[in-house]
């Protein structure tokens, strides 16, 4: 019995919520359950999902990263500028990554080593990022980015949109990072109890710093894919992604207090929001009504997940109690 119930009931509960939504949506709109629509949904969530993976790492370690959105906007736009200047996609991509890592390192420096609240530091870095790119471009967007758009608009094997491909790759990377590397496990430990982690010999500052750098890298990737998809370098487009990323992460079961969460959960959380946005558009629901509905459905999703979680833990304890007694 234990074996069946125990593994990852939380994930299952999200899968169930998602399946339930898909079921309801299929009934509500006949256009919903089609391959193209699913591809659309995946395409539409891909960038925010990559941001959410970044956010997930940070939230698991007990912090928050509000710079993700504008960092993505800045790194993506600068990568466009680099591409326009050099015509070298690889160079442009590397430049974007470098920027992401740099901003991440600055965030991490203040949060991990100077022990400042990450909310404020990353919020401040948000405006710094946006200021820097605007200062450079004089507030103009970058059009005519030519082949840079392959990063967001091409298709692999003729069918897989590249943004989806990027998302899947990041999912796999994040999953491995969190589940199978020591770094990932340390992040859980730090988020769960930083003092205990320190006492156990985990280098808390270094790991947090590293987490912010990884988050910066992820954000930069999201930014470059975004600009590719937008076919332009538009710094302001990044704004707001950090919040959407948080929403996806938390719906996906990542605990705000740190120490818990998975890449797969984040992915599911993001899909839930994607499906919600999609169906409301398919049904042509009034924009304002959409806001209200979306707000409540997000609350309901979190609620449902929280109930199933309570259910789970009691089942689990029972299971192991039986185990002990036999």
């Amino acid at each position, binding site marked *: 019995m234990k074996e069946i119930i*125990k593994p990852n009931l939380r994930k299952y509960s999200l899968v169930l919520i998602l399946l339930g939504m898909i079921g309801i949506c299929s009934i509500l709109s006949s256009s919903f359950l089609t391959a193209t629509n699913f591809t659309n949904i995946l395409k539409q969530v891909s960038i925010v999902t990559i941001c959410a993976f970044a956010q997930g790492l940070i939230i698991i370690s007990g912090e928050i990263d509000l710079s993700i959105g504008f960092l993505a906007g800045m790194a993506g736009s600068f990568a466009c500028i680099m591409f326009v200047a050099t015509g070298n996609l690889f160079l442009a991509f590397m430049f974007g990554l470098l920027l992401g890592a740099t901003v991440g390192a600055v965030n991490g420096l203040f949060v991990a080593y100077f022990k400042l609240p990450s909310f404020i530091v990353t919020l401040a870095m948000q405006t710094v990022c946006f200021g820097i790119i605007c200062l450079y471009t004089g507030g103009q967007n970058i059009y005519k980015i030519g082949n840079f758009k392959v990063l967001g608009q091409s298709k692999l094997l003729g069918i897989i949109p590249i943004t989806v491909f990027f998302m899947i790759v990041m999912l796999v990377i994040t999953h491995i990072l969190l589940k199978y590397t020591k770094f990932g*496990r340390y992040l859980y*430990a730090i988020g*769960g109890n930083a003092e205990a982690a320190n*006492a156990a*010999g985990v280098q808390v500052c270094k790991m947090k710093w590293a987490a912010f750098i990884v988050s910066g890298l992820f954000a930069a990737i999201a930014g470059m894919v975004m600009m590719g998809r937008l076919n332009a370098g538009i710094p302001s487009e990044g704004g707001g992604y950090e919040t959407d990323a948080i929403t996806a992460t938390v719906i996906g079961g990542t605990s705000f207090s740190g120490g818990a969460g998975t890449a797969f959960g984040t992915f599911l959380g993001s899909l839930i929001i994607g499906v919600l946005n999609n169906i409301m558009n398919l049904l042509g629901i009034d924009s304002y009504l959409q806001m209200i509905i979306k707000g409540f459905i997000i609350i309901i999703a979190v609620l449902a997940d929280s109930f199933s979680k309570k259910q789970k833990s009691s089942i689990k304890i029972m299971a*192991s109690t039986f*185990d002990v007694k036999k």
Partner: protein
Amino acid sequence: MTEKVYKMQLENISKSFPGVKALDDVNITLRAGTVHAIVGENGAGKSTLMKIINGLYKRDTGRILLDGKEVSFSGPMESSEAGIAMIYQELNYFPELTIAENIFMKRQPSKAGYVKWREMMDQAQKILDYNNLSYDPKMKIKDLPIANIQMLEIVKAVAFKAQVIIMDEPTSSISDKEVKMLFDTIVRLKEQGISFLYISHKMDEIFKIADDLTIIRDGKSIISGPISQFTEDSIIAHMVGRSIENIYPKVKVPIGEIVFEAKKLCSERTFKDVSLHVKKGEIVGMAGLVGAGRSEVCRSIFGLDPLDSGEITLSGKPYVPKNVSHAIKNKVLMITEDRKKEGIIGVRSCRENITLASHRVRSGIFMNLKKEMKEATEMSDKLKVRFAGIETTIGSLSGGNQQKVLLARWLMLESDLLILDEPTRGIDIGAKLEIYNIMTDLAKKGYAILMISSELPELLGMCDRIYVMSQGYITGCLDRQDFAQEKVMQLATRSEK
């Protein structure tokens, strides 16, 4: 190895916190393959010293020699690489992670940075099996009661090849059975040449396990030597600077009628058919092994945990526990077991912690700040809390002093029934005496006191009656004239009702 080379030498260690000189020129030598006990009052600086050895704190002055070579650890990582393991006084665990990961944190079997999960689970299972602990290593540790977590801490510290194991009050929340297991392990490891630094406030344990002893007072190492040089009285005299005649100041007080009575209390999974009563002026103990369900019963009475069925009367009037504030209104009070989790508000001042539950320092919805200050000061003076001032945040106090502040919180209130769950956990012997004195005073005033303790001598010394629990049932009740350690143990291990 010659006698001359010590496993570890601490020379002239000093350490100041802002405003507090926690350690002042401490010297300790640890012989290989021995247990070196360190005793001292609450706030004497024991934990601080251990944390310095471990690299968690930086010492101001002094040297640490390991195998004759000077070492200096910049953090727990380095010290554990050098073969030092430590059990912290305040339990340090990762609630959301599995038992296996808690055991293997920082030591995960891995290859090129990748954790080998299966191997880790297998090894964890082996460690658990070896220690006769029947948990599933995949279980999250937050689902375990505190005593079991402490057992895991112990298991964890001894499972890896440490040469020096530091134990800071390892037995503060486990019962005799587990203590015996621990001691067996220590003896076994001693034979393998492993050395121990052992901090405890329990005298009997120290005489049972220690080879050498150092006494710390006010941050100074007062005296050091083989255990045979010491007697219980001499240790106490050195520790508190005076001698204590009778540690259990039990006074016969007239016992009144029944104040509290519970009939057939049940709670799914944790206890069944628990009936007990406490009379005016009576101190009633609850004994049992770890996980017997004592805490659970009391928590239910206090409204902290749900109660499924059963009846409770207070002075004859029916009482259904709803929540804590309801319990307090009905003059049922309880000091919880897990000080850090359910006791202190770490970031707030001692003053606020003391007066948190008190209605006396308020007028209507407003606080009476003057009265609050006065009463909090009085109460902390009465309990001889050692702090830099009443506005100090409670989190920076030593463990024992935190406990006293919590005691002060509840003594601010009137009560009919006072429940104490491990009230002397982590408390030094002098302070224990204070607490016992207070209990006696309260009993004289007509309080009914229900005390859970894993220290049998304490129960035997202070109680009028003792209920014994085992596996969620009350297996017996002993009156004072029938008190005997064997009888309690017998009832505590009985599996049937």
